[in-house]
Every structure is written in C-alpha cells, then in structure tokens.
C-alpha cells in the first residue's frame, strides 16, 4: 500500500501524536495483554474454585461403596497424595501398594485388576483438586470367608464382601494414627512428597506443582498436625481400638465440635464400640438407635454419623446421604450359611420366643420380625450390667452442644438426641455377620454370649473373617496380649471399655437348651 502524506493539519497532528505515543500504546497493549491473560487466569482460578463434583453411580451398591457424601472437602486427602503414601511409608503399609494394611477392602474391576480405591473411600473434585475420604461404606461393609449361596442359588466359597455388615476388618485407629504421625514426618515435606507423587502417577504440571508445594501440602500438614495435637492425648488414654471398632463420639467432640480434651470428664474418655450393621433400617424408624439408644430419628442419626465421617454443614451432600439412607431401609442381610439341625432350631425358637423376642424381635421363614414389647427400647445398664464406657461417653453436656450448634436454623438442626441410662435392645437381623457381640465386641461368639461372664473368653483374636461354624461368629482363637501373633490383634477384655460382663440372658439355661437356642440364633 502506498504511504500517503496527511491531507489536513489534524491528520498530521494525529500522525504525530500516534508516533509520539507509540511507546504508550505499546505499554497499553502490554497492560491490556497482561490484563487479558490475568483475567483469563482469574476466570480459570474462579472456575477451579467453583469445582465441586463427584462421580455418581447408577448401581446403588456402587454408590454406597464408592459414592461421596461430602466428607472430602474439609476432611479428606488429595488423591495424588493418597496414592503416594504407601511407597513413602512402606513400614506402615506392610510393603503393599494399597491401604489393605489398615483393613480397607479392595474389589477387582471387570478386568480383574484391583480398583484404585478401596470400598468406603470416595472421590470428589473440589476446587479442581481430586480429594478422597470416607463414606458410609467405610464403617459398614465387611467381609466373611465362607461357603455361601448366591442369589442365583449357586454355592460360592471364598471371601465375600457384604455391604451393610460391620466393617470387621477396618482398623480405623491404626489408620488415624498413621495419618497423624505422617503429618509430623519429614517425608510429608513438599520436596519428598512431590517427588513421590510424580513417581506414583502422572508428573504434576508446573502450576499444579506450585499449588501442591505452596498450598495443598502445607494445608494438609497443618490440618494433620492440628488434629494430632487434639487426638493423640485422647488416644493415649484409650486401649487400642482393634479392627472393627471406633470411638464414635470422643474424636467427634474434639475435632468437629472443637471441645478441649481438658473439659471432658475422665468417665467419658473411652467410647470404643463395634461398627454396627445397617440392614433393615426402615423398621428401625422410631426405635432407639446407636448402641446406647441416644437417638430415635434415622435421618438425624445418619447425619450425625456423616459428621463423624467428616462432612460439615458446608460440604454435606444431602442428596447422596438420602439416596443411601433410602436404600438401607430395605437392605437385607444375606441368608445365613449355617445349617443347624431343624429340630434344634425349632426348640431354640421356642426358648427365644419366650425369653428373648420381647427385646429383640424374632426370625421366621418370612424373614426377620421387628416385633417385641421392648424392641428398640433402652434397657437400663443397672439391669443389663454391660461395660458402661460407651454409655458414659455420650454425655448430657455434649448432647446440649449438638442441639445448639449443628445445622442451627436449618431443617436439619439436631433435636432427637437424648441421654440414656443403658443400651438399646437391638433387632438381631444378620446376626451371623455381627460378631463379636455386645456393643463393645467383647464376646467373640454366640455360644460364648450364652456363657456366664466368668466363662467367656478373656482374650481373643479380632479381625478374622472366617466363620466359626460351631459357635456362631468369626473364628477368634485365644491369645496372649503380651505376645500377640503377627498381623493379628489380640483383644483383651480386661482393659477399660472392653469388659465382657453383662447381658446374662440365657446364661443360666441348661446346656441342651443353649445348644437349641444357638441353633436358632444361627439362622438369623
């Protein structure tokens, strides 16, 4: 194009101004460019900060096992760090590349490969970071090794995963202790952790690395150290939990409710109990729920349990909890694989109906019947004489705190919690999967439950999922706590909170009657 001379003085002035202002225009262009790039980065950042998504599963059992209930944002671990921890801390993972060392159960995918996450661990993308943490299945899915009949009538021998049964393998205390110790371990420093993250998955991009180095890892460590400071003094005053057990309320008091340990009474510091099963929740509506029967609302009990798992009022996924809650209302335990003598069962049923069914309901050919004059009611512990620690761990003071602070001003505000004086009479559906027995899992088998306290096993191995085909429950050989066998947990009933006293019902029956009663119980 031919360059023309300006025609008017104004054009000449504008040309001159343009030439004079070229540096200014370049500067402006740079500023605008930086502004645009900045705006794009801000938009990306805002988009990332707005991210809060999680996979949903069409199959409700998959949803139960792997779906999120909203625990991840404020309680979880970034997925990339979750993957790196086994190789970073091999001594805690028994050299395995997964979390089975803590009792987490893994399934295989359609190709027979072990799934990346165990049952009970869900994944959520929060602020564009994948985070994993607990869901309902963490505490309510266990395994049993037995020959069982599947829904198609085929006999299957091996290890069966049973959604809804207590998580009999999960050694939660060991997992918590590992995480809290890792927070104080130099291996969780950014350099070492990022190097391990890069080894155990796709290398982090430069921006992600910056975010991990300066935000995610320091925040995680801060959180772990803070929790360590609060929880370790409590754990130091408690006996080891062992697999399948949890202290429901005390960590809840210290972490979620932010109550100082010093303000708790000595009598409430040991609240360790077995994970419960969650079969047939529908018929339990209105009954006293939890071991001590401290709540009569399924929805409120579910939300409280979710808080214990890690949800907060900001992060809770009500829809996901509701979907699972609706499913477990009718969730049936698998049929008992025991095949006791039918005559003995019939005789045992008579005994049970006369002496036990009022408190526990009963089973017949149509399934479990949630019928009984005191079923779901609280039995005063003065009468029951079971170990009182779990009962004492839930206090009137904490109840008042719950009612005054959780979900205040929302339809979900807690209002059904009560302080009781005993333990609830629970329906016994799926009883064969719920060993060891009593709230604290202090009696390994049904046969032992029918023995006088002095004759019940003092110590036994917990965490074995093979059925004791004779006594009902899981195999639980005796052990010496001073020399526990490798890779097994020796439960000592002499420790605080572990007492196997109480529930003397049936202990004075003749042996033959006990045999018949046991035969009936094995059919539940």
């Amino acid at each position, binding site marked *: 194009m031919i360059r023309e001379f300006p*025609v*008017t*003085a*104004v*054009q000449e*002035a*504008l040309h001159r*101004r343009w030439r004079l202002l070229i540096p200014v225009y370049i500067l402006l262009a740079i500023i605008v460019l930086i502004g645009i790039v900045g705006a794009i980065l801000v938009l990306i950042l805002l988009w990332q900060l707005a991210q809060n998504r999680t996979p949903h599963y069409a199959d409700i059992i998959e949803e139960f096992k792997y779906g999120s209930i909203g625990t991840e944002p404020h309680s979880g671990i970034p997925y990339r760090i979750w993957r790196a921890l086994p190789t970073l801390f091999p001594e805690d993972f028994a050299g395995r590349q997964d979390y089975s060392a803590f009792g987490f159960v893994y399934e295989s995918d359609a190709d027979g490969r072990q799934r990346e996450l165990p049952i009970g661990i869900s994944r959520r993308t929060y602020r564009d970071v994948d985070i994993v943490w607990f869901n309902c299945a963490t505490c309510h899915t266990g395994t049993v090794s037995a020959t069982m009949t599947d829904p198609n009538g085929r006999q299957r021998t091996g290890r069966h995963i049973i959604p809804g049964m207590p998580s009999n393998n999960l050694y939660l205390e060991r997992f918590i202790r590992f995480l809290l110790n890792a927070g104080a371990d130099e291996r969780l420093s950014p350099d070492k952790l990022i190097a391990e993250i890069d080894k155990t998955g796709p290398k982090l991009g430069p921006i992600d690395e910056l975010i991990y180095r300066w935000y995610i890892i320091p925040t995680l460590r801060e959180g772990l150290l803070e929790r360590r400071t609060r929880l370790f003094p409590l754990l130091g005053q408690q006996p080891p939990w062992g697999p399948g057990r949890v202290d429901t309320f005390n960590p809840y008091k210290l972490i979620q409710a932010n109550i100082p340990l010093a303000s708790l009474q000595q009598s409430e510091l040991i609240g360790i109990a077995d994970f419960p099963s969650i079969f047939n929740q529908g018929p339990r509506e209105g009954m006293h729920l939890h071991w001590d029967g401290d709540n009569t609302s399924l929805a409120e009990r579910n939300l409280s349990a979710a808080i214990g798992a890690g949800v907060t009022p900001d992060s809770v996924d009500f829809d996901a909890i509701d979907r699972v809650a609706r499913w477990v209302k009718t969730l049936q335990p698998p049929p008992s694989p025991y095949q006791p003598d039918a005559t003995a069962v019939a005789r045992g049923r008579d005994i049970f109906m006369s002496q036990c069914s009022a408190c526990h309901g009963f089973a017949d050919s149509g399934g479990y019947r949630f019928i009984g004059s005191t079923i779901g009611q609280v039995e005063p512990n003065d009468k029951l004489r079971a170990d009182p620690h779990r009962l004492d761990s839930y206090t009137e003071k904490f109840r008042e705190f719950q009612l005054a602070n959780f979900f205040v001003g929302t339809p979900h505000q807690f209002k059904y919690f009560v302080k009781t004086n005993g333990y609830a009479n629970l329906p016994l559906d799926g009883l064969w999967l719920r060993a060891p027995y009593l709230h604290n899992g202090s009696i390994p088998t049904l046969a032992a439950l029918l023995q006088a306290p002095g004759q019940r096993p003092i110590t036994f191995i917990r965490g074995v999922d093979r059925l004791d085909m004779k006594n009902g429950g899981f195999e639980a050989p005796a052990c010496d706590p001073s020399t526990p066998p490798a890779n097994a947990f020796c439960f000592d009933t002499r420790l605080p909170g572990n007492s196997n006293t109480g529930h003397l019902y049936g202990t004075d029956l003749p042996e033959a009657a006990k045999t018949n009663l046991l035969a009936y119980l094995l059919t539940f």
Partner: protein
Amino acid sequence: MTENAPQGSAALATLAGIKDVIFTPLKFNNLEVKNRIFRSSVSGRFDNEDGSLTQTRINWECKFAKGGIGAIISSYVPVLMEGRIIAGYATIHRDDFIPYWQKLGNAVHSFDCKFIMQLSHSGRQMDVPGVHNYARPTLSATSKNESLHGFLCRAMTLGEVHHTIDAFAQGAWRAREAGLDGVELHAANGYLFTQFLSSGINDRTDEYGGSLANRARFLLDVISAIRSKVGREFHLQVKISAVDHNNVVPWEKKGNTLSESVQVAQWCEAAGADAIHVSTGSLFPHPLNPPGGFSFETITATYDAMISSGVSTLRNYFLFRYPMLRPIFYWAWFRMKRGRPIEGVGEDEARAIKAAVKIPVISTGGWQTASRIRAAINSNACDGVSIARSLIANSNLPKFWADGHDLPPSPCTYCNRCLLNAPKNPMGCYEPLRFANHDAMVEQLMTIYNTHPVLQVPRPDEVVP
C-alpha cells in the same frame, strides 16, 4: 381568550396611546434603530467557497427584516479567510466583496431595517475549516488545542496580531463603504477575541497575555484601529461574554468573571464602542449559549461533518453516538444549566454591565416573550434584546407582539436542533413538533433558496484557464 390573544396590559397601553417600550426607537451615538429588537448573529452555509455572498443570504436576511425587527446583526463575517468558522459563510476580507454586501444592505434597508455587520475571526474555534484552512493550524492567542473538539491552533506572533488588527479595521471600512449601518466585534463565545480575553485560554507571555489589561489589549487595539480607519461617526458595538464558564470540559480553568467583563465593557466604552452586546460562555455552542436542549440524535446525524476538524472529535462522536456513553456528555453539558432560566439567561449579567457603562446594552439569551423583554428593558437590565432562534421559528415575531400577543402561536421550543444542524445542513427550524411532517419542514428550509434564474454566459476574460 387564548394564550396568544392580546394581553391585557399591552392592549390597554396601546389603547391609551402609550408606546410599547419594545417598539420605541433605540438611539446609539451614531445610529437609531426603530425598535429594541435585534436579530442576533446566525447563519447557514449559504455562500460561496471564496467568501462572496449569495442571493440565498440576501433572502435569509430579508426574511427577518420583513418580520419587523429593528436591526439585523449579520452572521459571523470573517475579516480574513483564516478566521472562518465554517467554510460557506460570506466574508469581508476583499474589497471586491463590497458591492455584494451593498446589495444585501440595500435589500435589508428596503424593509426599514438596519444592518450591522458582525466582524469576526474564529481563532482556534474553527468548526469546518474548508479547503483554505484545513492544511494548517489556525491562529489563536494560544497554542493549546481547543478544549471541546481538539481544534489545532498556533499562538499568533506579534506581527500576525498586528496584521489581524488591521484586517478588522479594513473589514469595518468595507462595511462602511458598503453602506451598512455599523459593525459589531464578536468578542464573545470563544472566538479569537475571547481567546485573547479569557484567563482560561490566553497563556501568552507578551503584552497580549497575563493581566486583564494585557488580555483586553487586542480588542481595544482593534477598536482603536477601526476608529482610526472609519472615524467616530460609524456605529461600532462590541459583543462580549459576561462570564466565561470555560470549564465545560471539566478539567479546564473557569476563565473570566463578571467583574472582569464589566471592566472590559468600560474599557470598550472608553475606547470608542457605541454599545455592548452581552452574551455568555467562552466557547460555542456553550451550555448557557444558546440555552435549551441538546438532541443527541440530531448531533449524531450532523457531527460527522466535523470529525476531521479536530483531534478530539471522534471521541465526541462516540459520546454522542452511543447511548451508553451519552450520560458522560450529558453530565458535562447540563451541569452548568442547573437553576438557570432559558429565556433571559443572561439578564442579570447584562444588568450588571449596563449599570457600569453609559452606552446602550443589548442582551441575548432565549428572549421570546414580549412581557419579559418589556420587563427587562423597563428594569434597566438592557436597552434592547437580540434574538436568533425564536426569530428562526417565527420571523414575524415583532408583529405578534405589536398585535398585543405575548408569544406566537407556535413558539420556539429552544430544542437547539437549528444550531446542531448548522455544520451540515441548511439553516432553519428543525423542531419536528412545529411541522406537520418532514416535508413541511424541508419546505420551510428551502424558502430562502428561492433565487432568481439570472444565470449569465461568462465573458471570455472571466474564464480562468
């Protein structure tokens, strides 16, 4: 009785034989005008590119003369081609234009109306420079660009100042030679004289800048030069802005105050001026001159004729064109109007100046209502009023008043569309409310183009190869 029927007091006065002050003669030192109504300076692009006037201009001026006013103050008449505001306005920079102006004077006189030529120089306020001027910055008192449109300019050298003073004197002489009744120096509204007078514009460091006396020196030198050239008996009046209000563009300085302008008026009187014509504002148009509305749609349709004239015009066009940006200009423009009337917007300032001088004072600014004009004259605010827009709407306005009406049936609405069309379209009334339809409006605009087909075959010596 309708609004426009003869009003009680005027009718009674007429019946009683008392002369309406509007229609009493106004005597200047060297001129007597039959009544107190002056057609204020207003024009359109009627004339030839070389500055010679046309029949259209004669028609235009006669339209008002016939309407009954006492005197016409001509449109802005540049004394030099470099002082045009809009190409297409007649000039007085050449002796051979004297016969044209003589023809115009005769035509106006035939309607018993006086004709006063407004001698002018745009300085930097040059809206449409035309082929003569677009290749150079205009001459001004300053080298700072004009504030509203960004018109380019250059500060005059002393030699150029003296040359311009002489051009004014020559212009006055040509006006007298053409038989016109007087001259007015346009020392108001932002043109060259204002650029010297205003403390908000004049940044000179020589004897024509600094103090008020220095800033007024150019105007007083021109008066002196005219008097030297045409003598004491030729009518000479000066139009000044009583207050500059120079900060229409908010970051500009405010400019001259009323007390400074009173002093300037007194100096003009002492130097030989026969009258003071009082206006407002240091640029044109200005929110207070002419007062009234501002049609964004109209300016959007016409301002394109000025886009190439200044370095800030494109910015302004965007401010006019896009409704989202209009509030910016609206705020700047209308903030000065608050609390001020449209009719008689400069009455108080005229009164202040009249109190300070002995020569007659003419006030301009929205005058249209007989009773208000009468009151202003009777209260010594002024001796006469000058009107442009209201006469464009009703050129026979004095006749309505003479018949005892206070307002014509279809008065000027002060919409200012006539003003906003000036750079691009024929001068006339563009108020759609005053016409049945667009065709009627165009028909009104075309009336002044009713010329006679006296085309001649040029002689061979008139054709330049």
